[in-house]
């Protein structure tokens, strides 16, 4: 089981919860299960999100392994200039 922290404005789509428990061992599994458990997240996740795993930020990296004790934080998709 992985604890995912989501950012503030998504809480309106997850019945107000700031952290979610998800059974997942990869980036894609985690996103698929988030959408399954909280359909309201689908538009944002389809638009693209980044994932910080133990402080390291991944963009659209499906097979990134996630350990149960990893710190996992959902973040908007990163762009730069």
């Amino acid at each position: 089981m992985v604890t995912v922290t989501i950012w503030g404005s998504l809480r309106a789509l997850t019945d107000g919860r700031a952290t979610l428990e998800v059974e997942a061992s990869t980036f894609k599994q985690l996103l698929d299960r988030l959408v399954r458990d909280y359909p309201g997240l689908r538009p944002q996740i389809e638009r693209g999100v980044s994932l910080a795993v133990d402080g390291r930020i991944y963009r659209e990296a499906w097979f990134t392994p996630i350990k149960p004790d990893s710190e996992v934080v959902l973040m908007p998709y990163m762009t730069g200039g």
Partner: protein
Amino acid sequence: MMALDQNGKRIFKVVGTRPPRPDGIDKVTGRALYGADVAAPGMLVGRILRSPHAHAEIVAIDTSAAVALEGVKAVVTGTDFAPQADPTLRDIQENCMARGKALYDGHAVAAVAATTAAIARAALKLIKVSYKPLPHVTDVDQAMRAEAPVVQAGRALESVPAGTPDNVTHRCEFGHGDLAAGFARADLIVTRSFTTAATHQGYIEPHACLASMTADGKGDLWCCTQGQFNVRTICAALLGIEASQLRVTASEIGGGFGGKTSVFIEPVALALARRAGRPVKIVMTRDEVFRATGPTVSTSIDVRIGVTKAGRITAGEAELRYSGGAFACPTVELGAQAAFAAYDLEAVRTIGWNVLTNRPKEAAFRAPGAPAAIYAVECVIDEACQRLGLDPLEVRLINAARKGTRSSYGPTFDDIGLLATLNAAKAHPHYRAPLAPGQGRGLSAGFWFNFGGNTCVSLNVNTDGTVGVTEGNPDIGGSRAAISQMAAEELGIPYDKVRTMIADTASLGYNDVTDGSRVTFAVGLATIKAAQDAIRKMCARAAKIWGIDPDAVEWVDGAAVPAGPNAGKFPPMTLAEIAALSFKTGGPIAGHHEFNADGAGVSFGVHLCDVEVDPETGATRVLRYTVFQDAGRAVHPSYVEGQMQGGAAQGIGWALNEEYIYGSDGRLQNPGFLDYRVPVASDLPMIETVILEIPNPGHPYGVRGVGETSIVPPLAAVSNAVSRAIGVRMNRLPMSPPRVLAAIDAKG
């Protein structure tokens, strides 16, 4: 195997030196070819007709007279582009050529291609566009009101609460902890509102491209861009052709800073070229660059912090209202995440809104979204220091984020360089140098995420022992030198044996745009891995020649050597020797690496700025400026310094004189370098630089991106200096002399 110093840290031979850059001679002799420097047989001149209205319905476009004009070979309007299902592509297409509505002053509505520039100009005058002017709005706060004219309806994302006025497209919120409790523990609460005007990247090279399309639909596009692969993806979609049919070649680029990460004229040139059956060249005028490319967001920000008498920040809160112009723009999300990123806070919350206005479509400008947000936060912290009588640097040290800090945008920080950067500033003579009356010293911290992204590199070992690195990221600030250094370092050969070239889209796998300060990090990392790939192959060749097992061969100082005494007595076989035999031992040798790089490390900066303000005119002069920044590992220190100095100069311009000035008619009043005032040489002092190296664990050499952080701190550093010099807190950018003088006079 690499040499290590006494405490196990790697000793670098090439990385960290300052070799001459490979493109230097072409650029100092005028031979380097930029976007507008090429021509083609039968080439036509393309020009674009732009809306004089800030907001208007396009009732009809009559191009008949233009089409009939002798010398005109093609005319296109919005209907000549394939409709796009994807909302992002739809916005880009509509920004390149209006569909039904002109959304800002300068919005493209039609384009012609003709045999000469004069005929093209005359043809534009013959195009009859009947506009139905509509009410417009250019101010972000006004645009957020219910009664504001609606720029585009139905663009609100699901994150925007129902009933919010139509122009609001995004709402986001970040942070953690109990704000009420935090503010309750504060001895002082400081609240202040800020506005910052939109600014432009100000690259000296206007956008330019040369497009051609063959009868069987094959396209060739030469253009100045930060990302030729991205241009190919967008243009292929907008023209309705397949990516393999379009080859995009990146010219040398005359500055970008994020403003050339999208497309404006490229799809138009391709559409004209396809219609005319001849190459079409479009070069923007400076007026067009200002009116119709991608300035930054304009912002309106409220910040509140709670601080104890000892200077500990107990709570931080900000509300950011950004406008990214007439199209939906997510940049506020980055600003909201970055606002308090430099601080270790128990309670923090940032709310961000994006609001449509009748302004050009925002493009990134070096750490998009962060400068305005961090400016507001750093000004409020400086005000708290003044009111509590605390040293601003000490207060930053007390509250600085460090390893293990839960960041304001979510993840916990790993090794980061903010403390070291702050301490370097504290120890520097600039921080204690005396100030005369009328002078002020300002300080600000700054941050940018940096990231990796899709990257491909191929590294070819030539039979003469030289190495060619082929990569896909346009080089604005000297990255080809840094990449050659990393290849040479990993291969153990001299720098001048390596030549790095930038490939067109037909010659290499996909590469993300040059942005996000990613090139030296991600392309460098791919180059190192490509070099290791080549090294493995060269060791295998040596093993075959020596008749021993490949695992028994190592690479040391640019040569294959037996891995140990029992591997056999063979003299080292250098890269050149292996390369010379390569045809006989199995064929050409090359190393490759393709990946979506992650592990980019954040880069923190601290800037110190001394100013003198003329109390009788409100004029601000920057007397001294020092930049401290964590580069992780400075591969080519001269160009790291260049990023630090260049970002500081742009930030100073943003703070003092640069702004998009819109009239009540919604038209841009200063679309030129005369009245859009970028700093000139005589405005600035020498800009001192201090590079910190706190290695990024995500890169074998510890490299962090440095290109964007340097523009973040100057806004507040200059503003805090001016505020302290005149004894009035300034809360609006730019601090033009009329505003500073009005503040002085109001103080009485």
